[in-house]
């Protein structure tokens, strides 16, 4: 019975743990169970069983109550990173076999000649040239040679190719050649999945489009198998609710759509944190500009919310920037740096302190884990400073060795820097804070957001160590640490909507604007959105469609996204308004504007959203309410002092808590090293207002009132 399916659940498979968040009547619960690497679906059923047991039910009884099951997986991403995707052929325009090899040029470190040139996503030996050429105007310079394509298919069969990617020049303007090649593939290689660039990613720049297409095609066999197994086993376990997959765009899609275009779910890992961050910033503080920092064991991921929207980028790389592979599709803009709890602190021969990029990860882990790690890490420094409770680290899953941490910090940092161990540990956290700030500044700069006017949301197990320091350094007036912060992504998945994005390339200048062609394109995009709405079925509230243009000044090469005020351009005033909106966006993001210049829209897009739940805040309280205690911990300017320790679950609504204080929840410790004031929000989040103090590099003694 539908009325009994009152649960919504989300599952996030991490390297160590599979996280499950259960939503019931606007309350969230969090469960963890070990990930089963060779059978991830097994791990999912395990963690569902844990939740079922907590409710005193069988797995079947519990699963029958689930109306919506949201899932994020890194399976596709791992396949791309490890080169374990399908054996894929790449079909390209004749004369251009090296699109995937050359990428877009560039080199990160001009003086480092130890790094080899990166391999193409599809090897040259599986790259084939298709005779035929279309020009930028859509005109056919040379017809496509389908006999050659048929002959090629015979070779592909002989080479036992498992998937085919087709990306021809200018297919976004005239798709005839790609469609003709697709028809030959249907006929000559039945059952071999393929992707056509103009349907998957109709955008300018052949490398990006080709890379999207190659990655997508290569994931089709694998993801079809995985999704098939997942669906079958969940149904067998008794699930009748809807199964959804998280996308790189911070939305969800039906599991069947994810199998049809597997690249959509590729970067799903970090895409949900901003969805959760946006919800908490809004419900706790009514804020619309948000910086979301998710601090894990190995990386620190930063995402943003600008005026309630989560900005996307078309420059998302799988692997390292420049040497990995561009996904080419819009993806939540995320900046990751190696500043997690496991990042290693070291001093170079010139006496300069560094954090990372090497990480001790979870194996061997920080020295204090006692698993064979010997080098000093951020976690070790935090332990030396008294910020972590060695007995109840990560919900009590691990006991930390304080002596090992002290020894590592002393040997690796304190001695080479000529500092005492506590000052050295503080220097480590200070530099980590700086690296986090650098990551935040980089992405806020790219997206034109002033960090000082934004709310910082701290998630992830390691977030609490530096969050207050980071907020102060950025000048943020408010910091939110959600109660479910340790599983921010899984919580976000429950707050996300069904979404899709459609694009069409149609370069147009505002000074020679062709309203008929543009309006026809916009009408086509809106039709696609309506088809999506009909396809996914009704949501919890009305669907919404946003139209936008990707535009630039003529001669620029990077476009900015500008929302359209109108559904079609009916007058010169509409065009004028569009140009004005572009100038304003350019000013906001790049700091300059050229109001006298025409504006060139390169492509037009539509984003459709079908909400899956009513927009209400989700509440959570985790852990038992422990008795307040004290611990020796470090306060800048004062050294090690006896600091109060409070359990988050013991904090009551309306009770102001002034630092310095440590506030602990089962999965994280929030360090408040100064007189900043903390309060509990109705959602269960901790809201902190950092004190202002000038000259953080010249710490002054702070007297506690």
């Amino acid at each position, binding site marked *: 019975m539908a009325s009994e399916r009152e649960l919504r659940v989300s599952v996030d498979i991490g390297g160590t743990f599979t996280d499950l968040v259960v939503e019931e009547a606007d309350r969230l619960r969090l469960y963890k169970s070990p990930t089963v690497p060779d059978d991830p679906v097994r791990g999912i059923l395990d963690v569902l069983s844990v939740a079922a047991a907590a409710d005193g039910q069988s797995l079947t009884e519990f699963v029958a109550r689930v109306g919506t099951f949201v899932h994020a997986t890194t399976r596709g991403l791992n396949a791309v990173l490890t080169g374990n995707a399908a054996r894929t052929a790449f079909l390209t325009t004749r004369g251009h076999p*090296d699109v995937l090899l050359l990428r877009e040029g560039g080199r990160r470190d001009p003086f480092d000649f*130890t790094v080899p*040139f990166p391999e193409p996503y599809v090897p040259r030996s599986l790259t084939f040239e298709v005779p035929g050429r279309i*020009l*930028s105007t859509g005109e056919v310079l040379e017809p496509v040679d389908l006999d050659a394509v048929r002959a090629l298919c015979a070779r592909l069969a002989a080479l036992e190719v498992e998937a085919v990617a087709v990306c021809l020049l200018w297919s976004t303007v005239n798709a005839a050649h790609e469609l003709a090649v697709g028809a030959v593939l249907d006929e000559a290689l039945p059952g071999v999945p393929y992707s056509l660039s103009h349907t998957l990613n109709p955008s300018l720049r052949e490398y990006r489009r080709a890379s999207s297409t190659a990655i997508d095609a290569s994931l089709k066999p694998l993801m079809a198998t995985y999704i098939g197994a997942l669906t079958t086993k969940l149904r067998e376990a008794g699930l009748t609710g809807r199964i959804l997959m998280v996308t790189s765009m911070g939305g969800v899609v039906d599991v069947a759509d994810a199998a049809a275009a597997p690249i959509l779910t590729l970067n799903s890992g970090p895409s949900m944190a901003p969805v959760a961050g946006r919800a908490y910033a809004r419900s706790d503080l009514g804020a619309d500009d948000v910086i979301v920092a998710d601090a894990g064991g190995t990386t620190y991921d930063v995402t943003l919310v600008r005026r309630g929207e989560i900005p996307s980028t078309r420059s998302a790389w799988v692997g390292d920037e420049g040497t990995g592979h561009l996904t080419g599709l819009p993806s939540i803009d995320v900046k990751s740096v190696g500043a997690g709890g496991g990042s290693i602190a070291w001093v*170079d*021969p010139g006496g*300069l302190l560094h954090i990372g990029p090497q990480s001790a990860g979870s194996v061997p882990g920080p020295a204090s884990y006692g698993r064979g790690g010997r080098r000093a890490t951020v976690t070790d420094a935090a332990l030396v400073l008294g910020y972590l409770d060695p007995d109840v680290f990560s919900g009590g899953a691990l006991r930390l060795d304080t002596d090992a941490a002290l020894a590592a910090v002393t040997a690796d940092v304190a001695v080479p820097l000529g500092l005492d161990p506590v000052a050295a540990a503080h220097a480590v956290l200070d530099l980590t804070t700086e690296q986090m700030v650098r990551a935040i500044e980089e992405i806020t700069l790219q997206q034109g957001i002033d960090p000082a006017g934004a709310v910082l949301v701290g998630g992830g197990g390691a977030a609490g160590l530096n969050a207050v320091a980071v907020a102060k350094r950025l000048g943020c007036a408010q910091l939110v640490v959600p109660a479910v912060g340790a599983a921010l992504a899984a919580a976000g998945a429950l707050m996300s909507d069904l979404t899709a994005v459609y694009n069409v390339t149609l370069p147009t200048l505002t000074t020679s604007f062709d309203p008929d062609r543009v309006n026809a394109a916009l009408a086509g995009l809106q039709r696609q959105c309506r088809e999506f709405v009909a396809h996914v079925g009704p949501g919890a509230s009305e669907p919404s469609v946003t139209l936008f243009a990707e535009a630039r000044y003529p001669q620029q090469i990077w476009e900015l996204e500008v929302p359209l005020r109108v559904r079609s351009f009916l007058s010169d005033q509409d065009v004028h308004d569009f140009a004005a909106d572009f100038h304003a966006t350019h000013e906001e993001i790049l700091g300059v504007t*050229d109001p006298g210049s025409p504006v060139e829209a390169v492509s037009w897009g539509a984003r459709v959203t079908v909400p899956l739940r009513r927009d209400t805040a989700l509440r959570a309280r985790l852990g038992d309410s422990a008795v307040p205690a004290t611990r020796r911990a470090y306060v800048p300017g004062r050294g090690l002092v006896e600091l109060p320790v409070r359990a988050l679950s013991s904090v009551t609504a309306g009770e102001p808590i002034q630092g310095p204080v440590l506030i602990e929840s089962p999965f994280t410790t929030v360090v408040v090293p100064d007189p900043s004031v903390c309060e509990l929000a109705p959602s269960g989040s901790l809201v902190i207002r950092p004190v202002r103090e000038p000259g953080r590099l010249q710490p002054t003694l702070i007297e506690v009132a």
Partner: protein
Amino acid sequence: MTMTAIRDGARLAVLSHRFEAIVRRMSNTLARSGRSGVLNTARDFSCCILAADGSVLMTGQSPPIHVMGGPDLQARSMLEFYPQVRAGDAFLHNSPYHGNTHAADHSVLIPVVDHDGRHRFTVLAKAHQADCGNSVPTTYLASARDVYEEGALIFPVVRAQRDYADCEDILRMCEMRIRVPDQWRGDYLAILGSARIGERALLRLADEVGWDTLDEFAAGWLDYGELRMEAAIRQLPAGTATTTTVHDPFPGVPDGIPVSVSVAVRPDEGTIEVDLRDNPDCVPSGLNLSEATSRTAALIGIFNSIDHTVPHNQGSFRRVRVLLRENCVVGIPRHPASCSVATTNLSNRVGNAVQRAMAEIGDGLGMAEVGSGMSPSEAVVSGIDRRDQHGPFVNQIFTGPNGGAGAPAADGWLTMSDLGSGGTLLLDSVEIDELKQPIVIHRRHIDPDTEGAGRFRGAPSLHVEYGPVGTHLEAVYANDGSINPMMGAGGGQPGAPSAQFKRDRDGELVALDICGPVTIQEGERLVARTSGGGGYGDPVSRDPHRVARDVREGWISRDRALAVYRVEVDDAGDVDPERTARLRAGVTIGAQS
């Protein structure tokens, strides 16, 4: 090995992050708001922060030729002409006779002045222009006999803003002399905006931590650079080497230009000396190096040859003595010698010779030669765009870079472009180029068997063919490496020479001069093969599996694998270990003897 460490390495680390962030912010602004392809597509620009005395502190991810041995000269020339700089000043500087690279690189210098009127730092943003007012539409005019024939407007430290307001007359002059003035104006605004953002960020940082802290940082950071460099040099073997190379014959230099460099590594002193004085006088050509590019080319050759984590600042530069001579083609030019092409051709020759000298001083050191020359694949193209309502266009396209050099531990970087850029330049998208200019790029791919063979091979040449659509096209280029290819090091072989042709309407190839301009009519194509990079080490010592992979992937032929690398690759693309072992041992096999 022990060395003296700097004091307060924790605070220095934090502040160095802050300075890096400022440079990154400047670069980001410049890249994203610039208009011309050379600026925003190829990223031919740089940003840096200098101490008040002109010492280079932080350079970010810039093309090396821009930032190592020139910004300090520029900053000092600013103080020479304007001993009393004021807040709100901005100076336009493109003079190769006063520390700039070459006339097409427009620099903006902004003195960062505190509330008491004291000059504290200088920020510099520099970007290559699509046009700089030369007598013909190119920013690389190799045929110029002197600066007058070159024709560029020269700004030897000219105040372009005062009290944060434009000196409009300067901008009007530029708009009268620079082709596609709107594009120039857009780029100029981007450069100025970038420098102003750097200024503002430094002022804010000073508000937070105080000027004295920043001064201490500057001194400490340079000391740190010097300590790291000294330690790196002390680990090198002592030795000297002199290497020679020849730039191809060009207009004004019919016999080419021979270049000789002498390098002395002195680990006991922790110094390296590069002597460029034993070279010809300035030539009646645009090839002469500016003082900035002479110094920088030598520095690049050295820094390419040592631990890449040593910081690139005036502190580490202090450990390298570059000896230059007045009126020398690779030294200090005497006005009116033209330096139009100073950032590429002879710079690459000098830097390449230096890193090859380092390879002679010790195996496992130095590098082979990086591909060089401004091939037609990187030409400045111009004409009239007759599509829609477009008008005249002029832009440098970056369709095909030269190959990188084999190094002691890795093969050459495929999209290296040249030594001076360090591979940082981006490659144009075919679709973007065809949208921006009325051209079709018919082919772009690697050219097999063009790599400099070696234990670590050079990167191969690229083959590029393009022609106009509905119009004719003028292409200006200034290639090198067609006659004197890029040499290998330590037993490595040279890369393939570059080449240029016109493919006529019948498909026949007609050889072109190595130096443009050339006019391409509709239906014709310009065909370029770029320079292959030199190889490092004996090709017979190359890992046979790497050779087989190159065969499988179509980088080299089986014949070449056999003849040059002495590796037998079977039909499946795998190494035949027995035959390979015998070949490499010098045993003759059957018919292949």
